[in-house]
């Protein structure tokens, strides 16, 4: 009965100006007079800027030519990248051994992609990471299985950037957890030490720690003992990152309700057991998204090692540009490098956002 009556009524369509392309334009671009004005101003600005940029980058440009051919063109000389690709990415790594850093990077990126799925987060994954980092280090330094030894001074380019950021993050994380626990401790001496460390490191720029590592560390060591430049920079990055991780982990610890501690106490667990079995597993879960954020900023910050003359991927690009043949094409080379960083960082930041959404199981 009711079905019959409803069927009889003519279905009123929404007005044609509210649906389809026209409707979309109307609600999203021309909803009010000032929105329309804004749209036209923006379109005008884009029309003024985009065509010349497009012309420079794609039409008047050369993609794979000699340096001489670039002298006569108006547009971009992208040739600087393919001609120096090996050097920009791998730097001074010895000829004929290129497969080693490439394999190391493939292993690392493969593991990163493998670790994305939350169903794979088990204890075995942590071991896999440890083994992978050891294999990476072995591949880079050599000395076993017939691989010739490669001094760390020859580690350069993208592998160095990745090693500094991932090794830095992996070593700094446990340190950060201890610092965070220390800061929440009831023992005044421990608490003061941790607070002073965290606040001091967070108060100074990374570059001052890098200076410290490159000029002061040699003075700290007894006569005859030296540690190499890469390791010194890595120590500075670890010391710096640990303080930031400590603050992130502290946020997670503070978010734990008091009931969790009391329940652990009532079970008769001691401090170590409470932390290991009850508090940290929950607190660390909360802080995974901001931790990815820290990895992202460590990855960006490793570019600062340029200033203490380590050959990371930014420095190898600059070396390329100091070659008289390719001097003057900084814009092209830097845009390529920016694209490279952007791909890595955008992947990390969108992953962090996705995790945050997935892990936000509350209301």
């Amino acid at each position: 009965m009711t079905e019959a009556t409803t069927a009889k009524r003519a279905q009123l369509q929404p007005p044609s100006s509210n649906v389809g392309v026209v409707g979309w334009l109307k609600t999203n671009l021309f909803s009010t007079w000032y929105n329309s004005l804004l749209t036209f101003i923006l379109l005008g600005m884009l029309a003024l800027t985009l065509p010349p940029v497009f012309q420079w980058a794609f039409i008047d440009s050369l993609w794979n030519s000699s340096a001489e051919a670039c002298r006569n063109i108006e547009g971009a000389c992208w040739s600087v990248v393919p001609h120096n690709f090996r050097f920009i990415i791998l730097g001074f790594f010895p000829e004929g051994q290129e497969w080693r850093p490439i394999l190391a990077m493939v292993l690392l990126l493969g593991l990163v992609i493998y670790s994305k799925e939350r169903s794979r987060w088990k204890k075995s994954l942590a071991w896999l990471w440890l083994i992978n980092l050891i294999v990476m280090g072995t591949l880079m330094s050599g000395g076993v299985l017939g691989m010739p030894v490669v001094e760390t001074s020859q580690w350069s380019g993208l592998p160095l950037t990745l090693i500094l950021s991932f090794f830095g993050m992996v070593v700094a994380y446990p340190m950060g957890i201890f610092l965070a626990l220390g800061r929440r401790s009831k023992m005044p001496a421990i608490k003061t030490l941790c607070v002073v460390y965290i606040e001091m490191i967070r108060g100074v720029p990374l570059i001052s720690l890098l200076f410290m590592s490159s000029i002061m560390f040699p003075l700290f060591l007894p006569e005859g003992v030296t540690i190499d430049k890469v390791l010194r920079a890595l120590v500075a990055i670890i010391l710096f990152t640990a303080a930031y991780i400590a603050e992130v982990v502290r946020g997670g610890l503070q978010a734990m309700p008091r009931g969790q501690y009391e329940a652990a106490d009532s079970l008769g667990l001691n401090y170590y057991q409470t932390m290991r079995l009850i508090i940290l597993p929950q607190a660390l879960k909360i802080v995974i998204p901001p931790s990815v954020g820290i990895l992202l900023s460590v990855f960006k910050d490793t570019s600062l090692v340029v200033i203490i003359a380590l050959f990371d991927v930014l420095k190898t690009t600059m070396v390329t540009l100091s070659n008289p043949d390719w001097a003057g094409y900084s814009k092209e080379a830097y845009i390529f490098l920016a694209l490279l960083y952007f791909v890595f960082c955008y992947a990390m930041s969108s992953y962090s956002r996705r995790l945050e959404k997935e892990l936000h199981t509350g209301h």
Partner: protein
Amino acid sequence: MKPQDTSISADTIEAAIPFWRDAGKRAIGVQIIALFLVSGVSYYLFSNTQANLARQSIATGFGFLGKEASFEIGESLIRYSAADSYARALWVGVLNTLQVAFIGIILTTILGSFIGIARLSSNWLLSKVAAGFIEVMQNIPILLQLFFWYAIFYESFPAPRQALNPIEGVFFCNRGFIFAIPEAHSAHTAMGWMFLAVLVGGWFLNRWGYQRQELTGKAFPAARITIAAALFLPILIWALYGAPTAMNMPELRGFNFQGGLTFSPEFSALLLGLVLYTSAFVAEIVRAGIQSISQGQIEAAKAIALRPGQVLHLVIFPQALRVIIPPLTSQMLNLTKNSSLAVAIGYADFVAVANTTINQTGQAIEGVAMIMVVYLFFSLSTSIFMNWYNKHMALVER
């Protein structure tokens, strides 16, 4: 069995617990061990350093500060020459850092707020352009951005003779960004004082208006009066002084410009890079702050018949600012700390001058210590302000 035999006094319980099971005593033990370890390691490092310094015959201490610096600094807010002392050179560096940080913070706050609001716009195009800006700027290292802008200045801009001249009195060339400024005149000082006086007066007027509203319920448009006075009174002063319009125009003499105000390529690249990079983060903070206000608040404000301006002023801003200010301050601090990257593109900020000092004198420890102390001073003063602000603004609940 007598009852008193079963009851054990507190003293005996204490005696019965071995010290390694007593939480209090154990805590003292752990702390003593920790302090011992830290001081032991420090002593070890210190003695190594002493031995190394003695072997390299480097004198410690800050005696070098009084010596002649004998290096030039490209730009300086105060009079400086190579014959001045290291202390003065470092002071020039501090002032340069403060200069770039101060201008950078103002520009970043303005640009970041605009982009954050644009990100929330109902205009699809504007919102997407803002989102694109934020993603690109956040995901490229600041150092790379600085190199990029610096490369634009020294590679793509012409020599002073062919300087780009988009409007009268503004020039872009590989010597920097040069523009005309008004000729110095006593009217400008008077206008500045007038502006300051209006701001102070406006503050008192606002307080009085608020108290009157509390007592009588009558609103007083103190903010509007202050804005109007701040705009018109300085112009009035300017007119009273005879409306001086003389401009100090930059002119090409020989190989470079004379007159006007010059921002060197280093300073311009640093400022541009810092402002663009940081304003992307500020935009996200502003967006989050505005989004943190629940729709119900705005609806409630409309329901009690507040005008749109009042909704913004009385309901949205006070609540959004509470969310925005703390992370905003830490971004401002980040900008100041990132300005130390000036050393990579050759702007003479504090770190760059300290670095030159270290290279010339070999006083590495003192140099690095000074860098750390200066930046710690900036951070600590910021966190003191933050604590005061948080206490002042904390939500007073029932």
